[in-house]
């Protein structure tokens, strides 16, 4: 009984249904027979197998607000062959399979909605190949973004997609992640050359061809595109070949404030229209700027602001900054500060770097619920203004940060732990924001993925026919619905 209560206290959000699910999972579930456990253990070996309560609780959660849903069993495969054999075993016995990388997802994608086997992919951690001539790297799921960049640092190349967390690269592929650099370097969608995927029936395929490393191809269906963003519902990734870029010779950073959201976003739009290859184009609203001033003792203008970064040769970054300055001036900007000096650049961008911590400091002890929508830039000012209105009407605190070069923004709702009323309110606002984005010709999720929480919104975004096609594809690849069930779409 005391264990039950202890666990109840440590999980702050409970609904009756999930409570029962938890109880089922705490007492080790008999969903998987001993015979199956032995077979699974013999595939991966004793050291790569666990049913311990601690491990199961850990693997049922990510960094989202979704209630943890622990699996029944965790396996740590160390080769593609093992993943394939596990898939065959799970298909025969209809056991759900959930891939797990670094657990840094934001939409509850790793929760085991029907129990099953979690495949912790992090022990497949080799960097298989790096090519300076062809600018690509092939990595296994256990390789994180910072590890890859560290490994290739003396080749003069880097992998620029930076979602903030030190995520598994393959995890970033399956959630179609993006980052602050996307405005120039694209999202994961544009940066995968080939993927190795294990299907539900154990088949191992390469999405661009068995050993293809060509930069482009017109051969066959776009399988790479199909699996990017599938969140483990169509197959399990065991390797990815990613595009690399040259480390920029020079970097300049700039910051400038505006009297209104419209002025800031107009500037962003025009910077892109002017053909300036801006590398980072971030928006912070007045609430965020004020939070940063309080947190870091700075004296930024507390109004809508843009943070920009330019990459290129030393002449180019100066030129780009000066041109952006002109555009900002035409949009009523305050002082436009820019620099190439590394320490000065850190100082100018401090507000953007500290944004999450500064937000949390507004309500000490709070947790943050981060929303994610993306709309065409022409509709962005409107959507942001309406969102800010909804936030202020609700009485919540939610500073805003946005990758406005892509039309993408996040509201960081601050929640007192255990405040279920507030959480309910925030969830409603988040749903409303998703619908607002869809009606503004946008998408209900720009970069975080669908997970469990946005399934309804995806249906609204695509309509019956669109979802029907997705269901057909899912059925073709996973007729028993064992590949990460309960995510992305309902069947």
């Amino acid at each position, binding site marked *: 009984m005391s264990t039950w209560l202890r666990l109840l206290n440590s999980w702050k959000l409970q609904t009756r249904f999930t409570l029962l699910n938890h109880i089922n999972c705490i007492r080790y579930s008999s969903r998987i027979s001993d015979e199956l456990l032995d077979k699974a253990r013999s595939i991966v070996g004793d050291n790569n197998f666990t049913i311990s309560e601690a491990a199961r609780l850990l693997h049922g959660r990510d960094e989202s607000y979704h209630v943890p849903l622990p699996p029944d069993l965790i396996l740590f495969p160390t080769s593609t062959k093992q993943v394939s054999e596990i898939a065959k075993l799970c298909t025969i016995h209809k056991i759900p399979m959930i891939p797990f990388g670094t657990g840094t997802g934001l939409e509850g994608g790793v929760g085991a909605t029907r129990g099953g086997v979690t495949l912790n992919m992090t022990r497949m951690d080799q960097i298989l190949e790096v090519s300076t001539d062809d600018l690509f790297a092939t990595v296994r799921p256990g390789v994180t973004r910072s590890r890859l960049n*560290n*490994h290739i640092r*003396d*080749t*003069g190349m*880097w992998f620029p997609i930076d979602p903030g967390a030190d995520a598994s690269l393959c995890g970033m592929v399956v959630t179609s992640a993006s980052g602050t650099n996307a405005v120039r370097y694209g999202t994961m969608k544009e940066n995968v050359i080939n993927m190795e995927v294990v299907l539900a029936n154990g088949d191992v395929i390469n999405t661009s061809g068995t050993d293809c490393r060509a930069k482009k191809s017109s051969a066959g269906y776009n399988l790479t595109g199909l699996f990017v963003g599938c969140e483990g519902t169509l197959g399990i990734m065991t390797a990815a070949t990613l595009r690399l870029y*040259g*480390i920029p010779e020079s970097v300049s950073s700039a910051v400038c404030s505006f009297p209104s959201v419209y002025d800031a976003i107009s500037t962003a739009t025009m910077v892109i229209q002017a053909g300036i290859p801006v590398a980072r184009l971030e928006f912070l609203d007045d609430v965020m700027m004020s939070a940063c001033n309080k947190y870091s003792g700075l004296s930024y203008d507390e109004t809508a602001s843009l943070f920009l970064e330019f990459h290129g040769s030393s002449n180019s970054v100066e030129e780009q900054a000066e041109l952006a300055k002109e555009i900002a001036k035409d949009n009523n900007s305050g002082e436009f500060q820019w620099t190439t000096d590394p320490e000065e650049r850190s100082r100018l961008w401090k507000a953007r770097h500290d944004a999450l911590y500064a937000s949390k400091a507004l309500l000490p002890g709070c947790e943050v619920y981060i929303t994610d929508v993306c709309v065409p830039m022409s509709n962005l000012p409107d959507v942001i203004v309406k969102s800010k209105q909804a936030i202020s009407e609700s009485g919540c605190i939610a500073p805003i940060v946005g990758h406005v070069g892509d039309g993408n923004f996040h509201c960081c709702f601050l929640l007192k732990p255990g405040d279920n009323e507030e959480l309910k309110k925030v969830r409603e606002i988040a749903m409303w924001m998703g619908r607002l984005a869809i009606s503004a010709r946008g998408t209900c999720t720009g970069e975080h993925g669908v997970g469990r929480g946005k399934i309804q919104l995806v249906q609204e975004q695509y309509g019956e026919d669109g979802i029907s096609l997705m269901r057909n594809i899912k059925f073709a690849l996973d007729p028993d619905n064992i590949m990460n069930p309960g995510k992305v779409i309902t069947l």
Partner: protein
Amino acid sequence: MSRRILVGCKRVIDYAVKIRVKPDKTGVVTEGVKHSMNPFDEIALEEAIRLKEKKIASEIVVVSCGPSQCQETLRTALAMGADRGIHVEVPNPEYEGLQPLAVARILQRLSEREKIDIVILGKQAIDDDCNQTGQILSGMLDWPIGTFVSKVEVEGERINLTREIDGGLEEISVGIPCVITADLRLNEPRYATLPNIMKAKKKKLDVCKPGDLGVDITPRLIVVSVEEPPVREAGVKVEDAQSLFDVLKKEGHFN
């Protein structure tokens, strides 16, 4: 007042690699393992480059002693901003016996030959952790030395150095010529960019042997054995504080 700086760039196993001891216990596995420039040497080089950017130095010469692959390390150094490189060739297996005393002698001869004003080295290499080369070199050259330096400020003919010591920070002033060994917080080194890597291919890289400099590199220390630390054993759970005390007492942790 333009100075010539010498920077040592040792090729070591990359810091992110998991080290494995050879089964015959004579050393660690280096075959097929990723190598890169010693991180403290990167910091030393970055400081030299910043001095050059401030026009305090006019030329940066980088040196690496070891097998042919050391030229890759030198190319990285040239790509970061050094002007020319010197590879002192010491092939395997003699390289395994190359120790700080010999390296310091090599650097002494090069400092004299190349008319160096400031030698900047990493405080230690991450493979042997000797932390000796800079100190031995300063003795051989009879130049002042600042070790574990976290700040360098040139003032005319003298350099103000901040050293990281156990009690905090120590500020000293040295004349030129001098030796400096770099500590972690001195700076954050830049990345070599692709365009600079390409330009570096045209920079000068000379090769010579220790014998050409009149240096005998016979090792004075012999490695007897290299072993892994003992495997961590499973812990023991106890019921309460009294039991904990009893276990600790039994194991002799109290006098």
